[in-house]
């Protein structure tokens, strides 16, 4: 008889809190009152509780391996817990008034958002390819539904459908890759894969498995050439969901990708770093160049987020503790900035719907100087202007790449940032240097949204001016990967 393995639910504490909050929301949804305002509050409370639990676990210095090493609650996982919880909390804050405005308030929304967050947290602490798969599915399935929340809008339905079909396709690749790696190494556990792969380098089956795995992850992080879904989904999905897809889901996918590559497939580093070198170069260039041609702000930010994935892949190519630490810091900076940018867009509204065309922002600085300045700050951080978070993030990333000797990739990266300046600044040109156009644009008063933006602004300034403590945090977090 096989003895029952010890069940250490503590290793899943933050994920379980978020999941419990999701279940609670579903339950409360059935009870009176009919208004759903309080459900947002419950969801937020769950996320904040999970965040506090993560901080408590970090402070305790736990390094738990549970469920036969399938779940790893180390500081690496906890760092991503912070990022993901922040992204989810921001999405909830942005949702509360947004949903009411669009008449789609519902309990399922918050429940799905929390379940998706649970999946992300699971991805961050995955120590086994099967948990990676579970996490990705939990996260993605919830997001597919959330993207189609605006049932009456064609674009939203299209986004959901496209996201689901292409996502399912990519998951197939991922699963196939997992199967081949299992076939080559006899395990799905990261450490045992590492041991087996180390003993047999350059195994064909393993290399094919690695390739398929990268296709699956490439889709989730929207790197070129698996980025096609991103602009349509970002544009069609409700903006609060877009913010979560662009930040939380990306961070979670990166969390798993980095761990898989640097722990499980460390022996294959020569293979994947060459592959990722090319992917990074193409991703950042294509993202930036196509973004120039966009007039829809959500699409532009979609391509910009593709470009940022390219920058982060540069850090992954650079490898080592410095490279991985730089990617972690960048993800933190990127999450604050991108979530903030989507948040700012969400607060501007035309009489006939969302204000997402760049022309809608003409003269915004005269109508609402505070919001214009806030959005301007996020855009400048995305450009990488010091002293904002985006600059320091790029500095660490490109620094790690130069250190590892990838000078030409770095040159490509910095030139890309200069190209990117053009389209980010164009929005600022419209806000500050054009007079208001005919369309009536108004600012939606939203207390929760204001809080979210304020947190994001404080975040990007703090990360920009005093980056050292956060960079140290990221370095501590990557220690479990490189030992």
């Amino acid at each position, binding site marked *: 008889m096989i003895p029952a393995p010890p069940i250490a639910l503590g290793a899943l504490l933050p994920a379980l809190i978020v999941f419990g909050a999701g279940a609670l929301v579903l339950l409360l949804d059935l009870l009176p009152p009919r208004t759903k305002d309080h459900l947002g509050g419950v969801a937020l409370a769950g996320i904040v509780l999970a965040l506090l639990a993560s901080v408590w676990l970090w402070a305790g210095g736990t390094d738990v391996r549970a469920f036969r090493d399938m779940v790893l609650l180390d500081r690496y996982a906890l760092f991503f817990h912070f990022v993901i919880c922040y992204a989810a909390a921001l999405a909830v804050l942005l949702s509360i008034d947004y949903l009411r405005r669009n008449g789609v308030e519902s309990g399922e929304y918050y429940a799905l958002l929390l379940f998706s967050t649970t999946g992300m947290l699971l991805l961050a602490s995955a120590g086994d390819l099967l948990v990676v798969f579970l996490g990705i599915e939990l996260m993605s399935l919830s997001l597919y539904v959330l993207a189609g929340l605006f049932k009456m809008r064609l674009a939203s339905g299209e986004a959901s459908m496209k996201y689901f079909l292409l996502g399912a396709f990519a998951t197939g690749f991922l699963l196939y890759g997992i199967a081949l790696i299992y076939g080559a190494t006899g395990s799905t556990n990261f450490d045992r894969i590492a041991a087996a792969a180390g003993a047999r380098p350059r195994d064909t089956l393993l290399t094919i498995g690695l390739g398929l795995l990268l296709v699956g992850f490439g889709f989730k992080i929207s790197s070129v050439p698996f980025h096609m879904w991103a602009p349509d989904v970002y544009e069609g999905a409700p903006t609060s969901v877009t913010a979560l897809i662009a930040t939380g889901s990306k961070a979670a996918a990166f969390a798993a990708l980095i761990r898989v590559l640097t722990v499980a497939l460390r022996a294959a580093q020569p293979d994947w770093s060459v592959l990722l070198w090319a992917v990074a170069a193409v991703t950042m260039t294509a993202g930036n160049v196509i973004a120039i041609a966009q007039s829809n702000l959500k699409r532009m930010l979609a391509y910009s987020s593709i470009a940022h994935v390219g920058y982060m892949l540069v850090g992954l190519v650079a490898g080592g503790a410095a490279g991985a630490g730089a990617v972690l810091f960048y993800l933190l900076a990127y999450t604050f900035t991108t979530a903030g940018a989507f948040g700012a867009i969400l607060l501007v509204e035309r009489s006939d719907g969302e204000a997402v065309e760049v022309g809608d922002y003409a003269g915004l600085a005269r109508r609402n100087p505070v919001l214009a300045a806030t959005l301007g700050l996020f855009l400048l951080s995305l450009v990488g202007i010091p002293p904002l978070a985006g600059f320091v993030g790029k500095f660490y990333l490109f*620094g790690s790449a130069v250190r590892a000797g990838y000078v030409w990739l770095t040159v490509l990266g910095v030139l890309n940032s200069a190209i990117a300046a053009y389209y980010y600044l164009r929005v600022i040109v419209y806000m500050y240097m054009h007079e208001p156009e005919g369309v009536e644009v108004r600012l939606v008063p939203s207390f929760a949204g204001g809080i979210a933006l304020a947190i994001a602004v404080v975040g990007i300034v703090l990360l920009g001016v005093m980056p050292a403590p956060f960079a140290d945090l990221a370095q501590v977090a990557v220690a479990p990967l490189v030992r």
Partner: protein
Amino acid sequence: MTLPPIGLLTAVTFLPALGALVILLAVPRRHDAALRWGGLLVSLATFAVSLPLWAQFDAGDADMQFEEFLRWMPGLGVGYHVGVDGISVLLVLLTTFLMPLALASAWHAIEDRTKEFMIAMLLLETGMVGVFVSLDLFLFFVFWEAMLIPMYFVIGVLGGANRVYAAVKFVLYTMVGSALMLVAILALYYQHGAATGTYTFDLPTLTRFVLAPGRAQTLMFLAFGLAFAIKVPLFPLHTWLPDAHVEAPTAGSVILAGVLLKMGTYGFLRFCLPLFPDASVDYGPFVYALAVIGIVYGALVSTVQPDLKKLVAYSSVSHLGFVMLGLFTLTPQGLVGAVIQMVNHGLSTGALFLMVGMIYERRHTRLISEFGGLWAVIPAFSALFLIVCLSSLGLPGLNGFVGEFLILVGAFQVDKWLAAVATAGIIFAAVYLLWMYQRVAFGEIRHEANRRLSDLTPREWAVLVPVLVLIVWIGVYPKAFTSKTEASVQALIAQVESKASVARSTTAPVSRLSLR
């Protein structure tokens, strides 16, 4: 935790930004007068705070003075390290001196969006002073990049008809250059770290490090050099400059010409020469060939401009060519001349832009053909304008002569022919400035509108007199200024020479660099 006392340089650097923050939070945008006075008072206070830099500066000491150091990102070796030597102290003072004048000149020119204008100008001042005082490459890069944004707003929000194009062009040009500089900064950081075990962005430490001559040093030199050459601007990278100047409001042009362009030449002096001495020597002939082309080209293009502001803009290309020529002679005379010429150009060209702005406010045109005979109508303006033109073309007794003379003395020691061509640039300067002056001030009054022009107001006198005092002071007694800078320049040349020869003694026997 006790905070360290705030040093003089920190105060000078961040006082404008603090003022901008107060204006942002405390002064409502409808109170135009309060915004104007607030901005002016902050910039005057900054100038007052910066004066001890002049008084207490020890001219005999070649090293950095008023140094401050704080650990900022110790893990990376980034520190808040600031200080000035005889080279940067003059540029800091030039900045704090010109800013109140620029703000005062905009009293009536900027009627709309005064709040944005004041905040942008004050932040710009912090950025510019920061660039000149930074002794840490990271800190320097932060100021260098951060300064772009306020200038972008000054041109793009408050500029002329084609302002957006000019602003975006300005930013993109600069960003491409500085992007590569960032890579070179990182490369230098890791080279130094790998060689010595100390990873730091501290400039004095990196300057002591002897980088082996060769491909790496050359590439780093070119990356830094491109960023600075765009800013100077060195021919043929100057095309953003006329656009930016023509579209910028007067105050923006004054700061752009007066200070921003100096950041490029200062960069060559502070970073390229001491960090990459071998590459500087190798590429010296290339740079001064471009500089001489710029001198002649800028002058010739100026001659045919119909627009006053464009004429002054192209003259900057010519004048900055002189500065670059002086720097890359690597002779004491050439370098001292270059530093003085930076200050001179800031004063003369700043004053030219101020006066072009004044006449533009009266007539709302800058076309030379629209004027003529102004001497009879507004004699005071015309007389001061003449003095400023003469200063700009290098008349002995005024400031411009001192710098150009020293630079040419340096240039003749290096290459007689190039120096001869550069000297022709001075003659061209006389041609375009005097011909322009003749068409504007002398002759018949051809346009009725010109008969009703009013002469200088007390505010305009107040703006111009300080500049004129300095123009004459430097012209008559240049020693007051050159003496501040000489020790530092000598030390710089000695350092470049010793590093180049140390590096070369192991590879090539011949050092072409010596104190000629």
